[in-house]
């Protein structure tokens, strides 16, 4: 499979403190990659670099073979859906307006917009009435469903999710986890999901990338990490989360 997203020797530091050591990473089209690590390991920074929200100090980011630069960044962002914790919805717009904001700005046909909203509402299982409400009148789970709709509105080939289930209660979390997995399987998009929870990683990942201190410790399937840890840290990290791994999903 070819790489839809490619990082070549990308490095980033804040105020002299390196957050990402120069690292290279490919994201194959149609695969689900989970970036995992403790907080501060650089996993969210990596997502921001892919979206061009941060500029790398060195190296480059390629999307579909094109290097990201100031001239094409907005166009490339239209091809990447982005979901953050608690949805990142704009509070002054209704849920539906949040979903359709970009499509309207790009002057897509109203009929096509309506059809797409109906289709996505079915996909994420939210009723049309909830879409008329403002974000503050939605539940946490509903906000996340709307956030996913907004990310998928233009049917982008890639979907980036930064701790998408992080702000939810355990029941909603388990429910959405199962639904999200089904959606990934059904849509076949290139997915990059950031989490600190090994259970979630195991649930979603075709491939897990474990980061520590801005460096890739190991990448592979869950089985690779469990059976052939590259460093003692891999075993320690998994063991620290072992209790959670036993939890029923």
């Amino acid at each position, binding site marked *: 499979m070819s790489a839809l997203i490619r990082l070549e020797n990308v490095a980033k530091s804040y105020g002299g403190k390196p957050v990402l050591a120069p690292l290279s990473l490919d994201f194959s089209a149609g695969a689900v990659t989970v970036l995992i690590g403790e907080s501060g390991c650089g996993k969210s920074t990596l997502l921001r670099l892919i*979206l061009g929200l941060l500029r790398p100090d060195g190296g480059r980011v390629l999307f579909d073979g094109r290097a990201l630069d100031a001239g094409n960044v907005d166009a490339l962002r239209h091809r990447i859906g982005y979901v953050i914790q608690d949805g*990142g919805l704009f509070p002054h*717009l209704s849920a539906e307006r949040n979903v359709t904001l970009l499509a309207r700005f790009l002057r897509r046909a109203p009929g096509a917009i309506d059809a797409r909203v109906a289709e996505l509402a079915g996909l994420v299982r939210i009723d049309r009435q909830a879409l008329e409400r*403002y974000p*503050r009148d939605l539940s946490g789970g509903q906000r996340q469903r709307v956030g996913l709709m907004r990310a998928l509105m233009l049917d982008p080939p890639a979907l980036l999710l930064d701790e998408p289930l992080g702000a939810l209660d355990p029941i909603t979390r388990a429910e959405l986890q199962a639904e999200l997995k089904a959606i990934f399987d059904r849509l076949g998009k290139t997915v990059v999901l950031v989490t600190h929870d090994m259970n979630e990683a195991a649930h979603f990942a075709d491939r897990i990338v474990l980061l520590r201190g801005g460096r890739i410790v190991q990448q592979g399937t869950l089985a690779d990490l469990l059976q052939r840890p590259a460093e003692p840290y891999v075993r320690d990290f998994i063991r620290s989360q072992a209790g959670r791994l036993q939890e029923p999903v």
Partner: protein
Amino acid sequence: MRRAGVMRCIVLGMFAALAASACTAGEPLKVGSKRFTESYILGEIVAQTAQGARVPVVHKPGMGATGILFAAVKSGAIDVYPEYTGTIAFELLKDRSATDLAAINRALAPLGLGAGVPLGFNNSYALAMLEADAERLGIVSLSDLARHPRLRFGLSQEFLNRADGWPVLRSAYRFGFEPAGLDHGLAYEALAAGQIDAIDVYTTDAKRARYRLRVLADDRGVFPRYDAVLVYRLDLGARFPAAWSALQKLEGRISTQRMVALNAQAELDGKPFAAVARDFLSGADDAPAAGARAGFLQLLFGADFWRLTGQHLLLVFVSLAFAVAGGIPLGIAAARDPGVARTVLAIVGVVQTVPSLALLAFLIPLLGTIGTLPALLALFLYSLLPIVRNTYSGLLDIPAALQEAARALGLPATARLRLIELPLAARSILSGVKTSAVVNVGTATIAAFIGAGGYGERIASGLALNDNAVLLAGAVPAAGLALLVEALFSQLDRRLISAGLQSPGPGR
């Protein structure tokens, strides 16, 4: 640099709009007057005399103190105003020898100005005490007064600061105490209440009799003559020949006693200045004042109510519109760049600390005119701070996650600003505009002191007349307007701010 250019365009735009409105129709003859009863009356007499010669006339009453009137006549903002020879020599020409008209005119000619038409009375400065106090202490002259260093003086700011006022008096009589500055209109009440012992008065002062004042003799002859004359632009005769020859006929028409009587009609009987002047010119001024004083409601909704309301609204909302048009972009620029923020916030902050009368006095020579334009510019400058600051803080208060979500969508910067950032900052911006508008309603009352009209005109004449009813007839509608503006903006808040940002009501 581009931002400075934008600022300049806004200010120039303001000028152009007003210049255009000022230049329609033929230029009328413009009469000015100072901010005290006698000057209001003389200004009216001059204006009505010129009107009698079928010349279009504008009277800008109570424009301010001497400096403002002189600047105005020099710049051509007015053509003529009543003045006193002593004031011209000491205050304007700073020449103690130039006290006769010929010497004064030699000094004024290079400025394109002349002084003439002596009206017939001498309104000198004097110090006065309550008759009873003076009798008890045995004070008849200023030399007697100097022997009582414990007495308290309340002197008008103008008298305190002018070269022919307190400074010469203090050195001639060796007064050894510090006087308090007090508005002239308030000084009588303070004297009657026993808070002060001596005040400055004019020899034609109408309140001399009413408050039982003893005018102290100037036994060392310090005060020069203050013969009432007209200061005019030398081209006046050529531009308005009919009016000019009519004005010449005012020479010698007003004796000191007559001036005291005219002042009394205005101050003590509450007769409008225009009526005092009209009756004087028609020779009917000896008739007793018709009827009782006007009631408060009659004063409040007097004939000038709608004109003053219109002027006040114009001052408040035109300056506010320019402040919104200039302040929001400045706030946006500040939110984008911390360097710009420091500079812009510092400048608009400093402007805010300049006292309003000082700012007006500073803008008059800068703009070369008095009246609406400097008032609008001052109000515009005062309005900037709340709008700039609230736009800036409203934009900075947007959570970083939302700003990032907007960028991640792939919206260009202008679209983010229009669709997301400004709507999210709208409540803060609107509250800044509201603050400016409400403060503007109050500050605009000051504009009357430089002839820009509005409710402040009544406050200024109320102060000059020491008439609380007139003062309130200006202050009450100004306060009402402030409340109205407050209510209007609360409505706007409900209309303009997204329901998603309103605090949830009980019905939700």
